[in-house]
């Protein structure tokens, strides 16, 4: 399934709807929304109705409250004369102990090498966590540890399995597997 619509906004809305169904049946009642003109660029991320916060607090098992952010910068491309297909040009998923400070860990992707920066791996993980190396202690932010393309389902799975966030349904694993197949087939990620 490709995320396509008759208008750019319709394609982005379809993507949002898919992710909202996923999130609301597995991890959180928070909703994703988007801002911007999808024909150019739009940011798709969590927008809480009771505020405008772009993050949601998750209660973990034994690690306290962490703040999750899921953000994608998307654009759409015309396919034929009447269809517009979604494309992710950047993503950042992060877990923070405090929304105002650097993330503990974050998964970043940029479709293009960012101008003015070193040519590090475009899919990587960073964060403020300490990393013990033979010669001393560094911070994960000093490196761009390579990853594959990470989909939102992977982050939801991490939160449930590793952080012990209570899932919203018993069949969360099946929901994530099916959604992941749909997303990987549908996103023109430009890997």
């Amino acid at each position, binding site marked *: 399934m490709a995320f396509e619509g008759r208008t750019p906004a319709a394609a982005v809305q379809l993507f949002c709807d898919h992710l909202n169904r996923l999130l609301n049946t597995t991890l959180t009642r928070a909703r994703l929304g988007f801002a*911007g003109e999808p024909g150019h660029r739009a*940011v798709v991320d969590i927008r809480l109705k009771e505020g405008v916060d772009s993050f949601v607090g998750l209660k973990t098992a034994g690690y306290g409250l962490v703040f999750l952010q899921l953000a994608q910068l998307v654009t759409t491309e015309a396919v034929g004369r009447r269809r517009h297909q979604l494309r992710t040009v*950047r993503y950042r998923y992060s877990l923070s102990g405090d929304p*105002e400070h650097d993330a503990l860990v974050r998964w970043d992707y940029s479709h293009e090498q*960012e101008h003015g920066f070193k040519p590090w791996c475009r899919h990587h993980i960073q964060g403020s966590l300490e990393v013990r190396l033979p010669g001393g202690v560094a911070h994960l932010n000093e490196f761009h540890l390579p990853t594959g393309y990470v989909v939102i389902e992977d982050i939801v799975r991490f939160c449930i399995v590793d952080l012990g966030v209570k899932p919203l349904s018993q069949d969360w694993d099946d929901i994530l597997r099916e959604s992941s197949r749909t997303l990987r087939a549908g996103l023109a990620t430009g890997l």
Partner: protein
Amino acid sequence: MTVPDDLREAIENNTMTEAQIRQLIEIEAGELGLTYVEAMRKARAGELPTGPLGTDIEFLAAVLAA
């Protein structure tokens, strides 16, 4: 974070105008102790905190830059 009703409604309905995106950036920048101009400069330089507030500003700034 204090948000005007019209901006809140636009966020909920996915209908934010460019002016409202700038307004949201300004509000979020204030939460980080920055002005709009400072936040935009830091966003372009990749110098904002990488927590949720900083990331939101950075991504919204990227939308404006398109």
